[in-house]
């Protein structure tokens, strides 16, 4: 049967509809005009007109992370495309499925330094998981479907499709997703049985085990988090979750030790250091987690589950590598454990938990709110308590507030926490919140930010207001680039350099100008009311909270130091890990 022929712009929209895309974040331009003409004549796929293309990609990321579906961004050629680069690298580093469509100048002009021409596929080659330049309208549908396949299969990531104007205007055949078979990309989903058997036997023999899980569990889908929870509960092992993995195991459970790494808890870091069996599920031994690799968990046998073979043995060589999707491998782990009727070493575990209890007793996240300025830890603890059990999604920007949010907000389920982990992109929070809200119109979305990051993509507040998305921005305003100030204080002789942000602007006026409801708080006594009011108002709300300028994020393992070098508080207050702790092995 002859297939019907369509104009390129129609093919793009048909392909998006067949990929079940409900919303696209985009910005029009010269070469994408014929596509926008078609967008305007349909209402299957909603288009959200952002204010900047970087915002479009972060919004697509927020949408993807909170829904589990790929996010879609659309930009024009040249500056439109180059503006997407930061968002693409962000999605690459955090393994977020994003499909970015960019317009390109007419094929015959490519390479001629035409108006608004940039070598988009060249520029984004190392910024994407894969990218395509579509040469003919006949290839358009196939390439778009393949892009969605590559973005969402294996380790997810951003895929860019660059489409010249003549391809958008030309005529071609439409093929559906079912007719497109990716030629060569076939990631391994199922882990090798022998390795999984070896892993569970090692786990059963462990005397000081730890489960260290990350974003791979979240990316694998909600089922993976359920299976992880089942594994942790069945074994009685302690569990730590990376910044990307928060929510994969419920934070309220006693077996949760908090986050490991540079700003992780004492108990998580010491348990990582002292363990004899480490079970890494979907994490990647990032330098912010390992610290000094030579001194990283020196006495443990390590199991590493990852869908990407290049993540294994990259930073830390492991004893039992398992390549596969977390859901599949966790299911097999549980099944094999039960089939072999394996038992944990209960007396050893009891001793291990007693040791962990000693570290927990040091209360490494403890703080005291006095009647001075509001402490960020206090504000976020109150946000956690006042929204407990509610349908809330949280995004953050990058810096001190991000680390405090990771420490003090607790997540009971996956996909509730959106933060820029790998790239650490200031300016991520506001557009990401917009994307989350677009995917969850009836839920509450809070963007925890601070004035440095906020100003990097503040223009998207206009978009949020225009579409009436009831995003809540909590601006922990300390008038300083807090993490920069903290490092200057601790590692650069307490000399502040170019980190002061007391310049303003007047955020309340600005918020009002953007169409947000402005709220403010500056006294600890006002915090609860302000947060309650922010959560209650069903409109875009901006809560400017004046907070302490001098607060530092603790615990802290200085960059490149070992886990036992953890600093718990001001004045170089050390963990005082005693020799007995160190000699446990």
């Amino acid at each position, binding site marked *: 049967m002859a297939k019907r022929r369509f104009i390129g712009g129609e093919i793009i929209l048909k392909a998006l509809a067949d990929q079940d895309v409900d919303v696209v974040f985009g910005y029009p331009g010269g070469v994408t005009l014929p596509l926008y003409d078609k967008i305007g004549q349909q209402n299957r796929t909603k288009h959200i007109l952002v204010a900047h293309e970087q915002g479009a990609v972060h919004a697509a990321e927020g949408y993807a992370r909170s829904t589990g579906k790929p996010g879609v961004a659309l930009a024009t050629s040249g500056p439109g495309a180059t503006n997407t680069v930061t968002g693409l690298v962000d999605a690459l580093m955090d393994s977020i499925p994003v499909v970015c469509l960019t317009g390109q100048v007419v094929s015959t002009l490519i390479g001629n330094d035409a108006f608004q021409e940039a070598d988009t596929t060249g520029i984004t080659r190392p910024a994407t*998981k894969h990218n395509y330049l579509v040469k003919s309208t006949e290839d358009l549908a196939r390439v778009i479907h393949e892009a969605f396949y590559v973005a969402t299969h294996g380790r997810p990531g951003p895929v860019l499709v660059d489409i010249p104007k003549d391809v958008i205007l030309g005529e071609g055949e439409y093929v559906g997703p079912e007719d497109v078979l990716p030629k060569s990309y076939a990631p391994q989903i199922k882990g090798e049985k022998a390795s999984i058997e070896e892993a569970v036997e090692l786990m059963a023999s462990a005397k000081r085990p730890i489960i260290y899980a990350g974003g791979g569990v979240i990316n694998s889908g909600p089922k993976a988090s359920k299976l992880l929870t089942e594994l942790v509960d069945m074994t009685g092992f302690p569990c730590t979750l990376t910044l990307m993995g928060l929510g994969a195991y419920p934070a309220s459970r006693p077996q949760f030790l908090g986050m490991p790494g540079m700003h992780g808890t004492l108990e998580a870091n010491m348990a990582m250091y002292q363990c004899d069996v480490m079970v890494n599920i979907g994490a990647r031994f990032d330098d912010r987690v390992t610290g000094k690799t030579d001194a990283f968990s020196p006495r443990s046998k390590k199991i590493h589950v990852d869908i990407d073979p290049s993540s294994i043995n990259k930073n830390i060589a492991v004893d039992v590598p398992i390549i596969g999707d977390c859901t599949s491998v966790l299911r097999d782990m549980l099944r094999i454990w039960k089939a072999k009727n394996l038992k944990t070493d209960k007396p050893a575990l009891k001793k291990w938990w007693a040791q962990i209890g000693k570290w927990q007793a040091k209360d490494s996240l403890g703080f005291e709110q006095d009647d001075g300025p509001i402490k960020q830890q206090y504000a976020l603890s109150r946000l956690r308590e006042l929204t407990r059990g509610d349908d809330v999604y949280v995004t953050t920007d990058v810096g001190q507030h991000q680390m405090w949010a990771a420490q003090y907000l607790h997540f009971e389920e996956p996909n509730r926490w959106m933060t820029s982990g790998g790239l650490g992109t200031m300016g991520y929070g506001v557009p990401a919140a917009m994307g989350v809200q677009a995917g969850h119109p009836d839920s509450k979305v809070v963007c925890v930010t601070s004035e440095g990051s906020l100003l990097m993509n503040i223009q998207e507040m206009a978009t949020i207001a225009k579409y009436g998305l009831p995003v809540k921005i909590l601006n922990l305003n300390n008038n300083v680039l807090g993490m920069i100030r903290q490092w200057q204080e601790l590692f650069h002789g307490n000399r502040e350099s170019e980190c002061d942000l007391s310049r303003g602007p007047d955020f309340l006026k600005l918020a009002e100008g953007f169409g947000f409801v402005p709220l403010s708080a500056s006294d600890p006594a006002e915090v609860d009311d302000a947060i309650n009011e922010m959560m209650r108002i069903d409109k875009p709300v901006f809560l400017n909270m004046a907070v302490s300028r001098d607060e530092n994020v603790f615990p802290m393992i200085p960059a490149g130091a070992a886990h036992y070098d953890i600093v718990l508080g001001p004045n170089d207050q050390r963990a005082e890990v005693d020799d007995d702790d160190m000699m446990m092995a």
Partner: protein
Amino acid sequence: MAPRKKPRKTPTKAQLDAKAEPQEHTFSVLVANEAGVLARVVGLFSGRGYNIDSLTVSEVDEEEHLSKITIVTTGTPMIIEQIRAQLERLVPVRRVADLTVEGPSVSRELALVKVKGRGEKRVESLRIADIFRAHVVDSTNNSFVFEIVGDTGKLDAFIELMQPLGLIDVSRTGVVAIARGAEEM
């Protein structure tokens, strides 16, 4: 089209000697011959700080639009393993073989060597070329261009011997390599 090879086993810590010295490895990489594929492979090496000692590329299957890239690189076992895993995850890459570890292989390189000289030196260069089974592919009354094929070591030796005899220019193809025996890649 030949399917992808069965996934290989990822090495364990015990198999990756952390203290081993960097070693030269020859990779054979079968890729879809599409725009930008060479840039992807080369960009991977430069972006992650790996060395390229030699690189060759050419289409090998016109029907399936497949090209083969031969890369000679140097690294510790952990780096070599990373290079391999990173190559394998590129979408247009079909197969990666580390010819240095996967059984015996043959490798060849071709060089064109220009020597300028008269008299005894000119005669001597011809004599050495004969020993190395190099052919004269261009000749003037005061120069030769020799074509020589062999492994890298043989070419290096020939070029070194030509140095005092009036060597003025060299072009080398870089290494191409293939596994010995009857099996396909």
